[in-house]
């Protein structure tokens, strides 16, 4: 397909600068109506997307009764309270005291960062090379061709993880990987690898092979061409894959609760722990969720353009 042949540079340049301005017909009422509609729709959806986040964020400053009475606006219908943050030892009055739940929170936060970054990096390293190989060469592995290899990776995405509970417990016990960060990193790598391969393969497919041919003629080896020429071009795609991986790893709950005990625990189990036989601590769950989502929001704000840019080069395929 032609779109796939679009040169990567063009695609990147186009998305970085935005599309060329369209000619505006001045005085066109229908067009003005269209504008109004577009902004109305954008604002409505912004509200839908952000309201639950606003609700979560403000709930972190509510007392229980403010939640159960549906109060919404701080200082107007409820007085903000530090209770949620205090339960994590992160409020002004507790931040300088020793606080068990803060120690726990910090430990898990650090673990979450290490595990997410570790798994995403490993998945990116393994996935990019696989994707490049599948994009550029024809493999035969017995009766398996490229399509089968691709599908093999894709199929790892399908199985509901819960049925791997006993097998992984037994395997990890045998390998002494239980409650280790490296153990968690390996599982998460497995989990996000198919997505990385899928994103990166689309990415490589849009890069014309002429680029490597030229490098090869100049005396590069195939790996040299890949590392020195292709990877820099595919960087936005790698960032996109990396971010998707981080988000998925960051919020992963099941394996984290199963395979960790003390040393390698991550945040999601602590979020879930805010509910139980005593109902729910709205304030502390909201505070925890807010604290847990912050790193991702920052990633979203600063790297958002890479996500779209990275997928842009590929998804026309």
């Amino acid at each position: 397909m032609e779109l796939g042949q679009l040169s990567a540079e063009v695609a990147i340049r186009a998305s970085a600068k935005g599309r060329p301005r369209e000619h505006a017909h001045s005085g066109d009422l229908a067009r003005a109506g269209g504008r109004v509609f577009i902004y109305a729709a954008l604002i409505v959806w912004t509200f839908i997307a952000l309201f639950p986040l606003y609700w979560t964020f403000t709930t972190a400053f509510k007392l229980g009764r403010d939640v159960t009475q549906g109060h919404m606006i701080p200082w107007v219908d409820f007085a903000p309270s530090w209770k949620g943050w205090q339960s994590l030892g992160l409020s002004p009055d507790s931040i300088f005291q020793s606080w068990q739940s803060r120690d726990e929170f910090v430990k898990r936060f650090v673990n979450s960062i290490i595990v997410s970054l570790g798994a995403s990096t490993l998945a990116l390293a393994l996935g990019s090379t696989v994707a490049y190989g599948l994009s550029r060469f024809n493999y035969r592995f017995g009766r398996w061709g490229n399509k089968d290899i691709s599908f093999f990776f894709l199929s790892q995405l399908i199985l509901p993880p819960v049925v791997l509970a006993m097998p992984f417990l037994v395997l990890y016990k045998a390998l002494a990987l239980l409650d280790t960060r490296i153990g968690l990193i390996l599982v998460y790598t497995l989990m996000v690898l198919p997505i990385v391969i899928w994103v990166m393969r689309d990415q490589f497919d849009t890069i014309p092979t002429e680029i490597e041919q030229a490098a090869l003629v100049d005396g590069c080896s195939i790996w040299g061409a890949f590392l020195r020429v292709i990877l820099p071009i595919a960087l936005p795609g790698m960032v996109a894959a990396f971010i998707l991986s981080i988000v998925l790893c960051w919020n992963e709950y099941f394996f984290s609760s199963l395979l960790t005990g003390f040393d390698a625990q991550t945040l999601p189990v602590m979020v879930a722990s805010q509910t139980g036989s005593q109902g729910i601590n709205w304030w502390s769950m909201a505070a925890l969720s807010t604290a847990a989502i912050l790193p991702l929001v920052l990633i979203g704000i600063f790297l958002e353009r890479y996500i779209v840019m990275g997928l842009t080069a590929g998804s026309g395929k």
Partner: protein
Amino acid sequence: MGLSVDGGKLEVLQTHPSDASAELGRWVFRLASAVLILVGVLQILDATGVADFGLTDWRPFLYAFLLWSVALGAHQVLTRGEAGQQALFVLPGLLFTLAMVIFPTLFGLYIAFTNWNLNGASSHHFNGLDNLITLWNDAYFWNALGNMVFYVLSVLVQYAIAFGLALLLNAEIRARKFFRVAFLLPFMLSPVAVSWMIGKSIMENRFGPAATLARYLGWEDPAFFTSPWIARTSIALMDGWVWIPFMIIMLLAGLQALPNDVKEAAKVDGASAWQMFKAITFPLMLPASMTAIVIRIIFELKLADIVINVTAGGPGGATDTVSSYIYRVYRDRSDIGYGTTIAEVYLILIIIFITLLLKATSRYMRKMV
């Protein structure tokens, strides 16, 4: 090893390694294989208690496997030259994935044909087709599978919304970056938080803002999770809230890759916006759309967290998903034999479904281009 490269999409001159290096490669590989087998045998002897080498775990075998993997890579390069270097691209990923899943898969298959229940008094044993027969007669499974049809179809609605929003984001608008980040954020909230903050708080019958809004709009007693269809729809709405951003990103990326000259040409012809969308944008976007939909369907088929937390499958199984049912059987009831059977059968169903879907869409996509 039967991994070979026969020609390529990328034309590379095939080199042939010298006999000496090929010989070296073969020896490296043989040696590593011997070490791997030796360590494996020692581990088995130790684990079965035949001999005692003081091994506490299978780490040595893991390291031997790592060594063997490296040797395999070296073997490829040394014996097959250029083709070996090319094989090196997929080998690490393949070996990693195989190493991670081969034991769980085989062990899982074995479990699927046993009566293993963790609370069972005696140890588990092979029980043939019993689990499959139970599954065939399991109304809960079929009910959940039926619900999955609804959830999968809801992906199409999500797709339509996401497409619309992607078009808006792609239009000439101010504050584009703000809108893009805003639209992306829901994807980042953890499922547990989504369940509680939205399902059990915003959509709460009495104090939830959504219920208040619904009352204001004239729905007298807004119960989002009581009648089957409304409950299913509510779950789909929450699920959509989380995943629409993902689709928006993919579709937006597709839109931005569209060549501008085609559109410009259409505009010169005086095509209306709708005609342009129908004749140009939509067909050109089909491949990107299909990728987005297929990936989303795969995720959708694993939908569980929100259902477990918000409705526990109720009312009367109306919102149950296969995955949430598997959770109940496998975790709440520790019935891991039967739970694994359900999952394996479901896996096969999904693979068939996805294969058919890919076949159908790839035929369609080729026709389109």
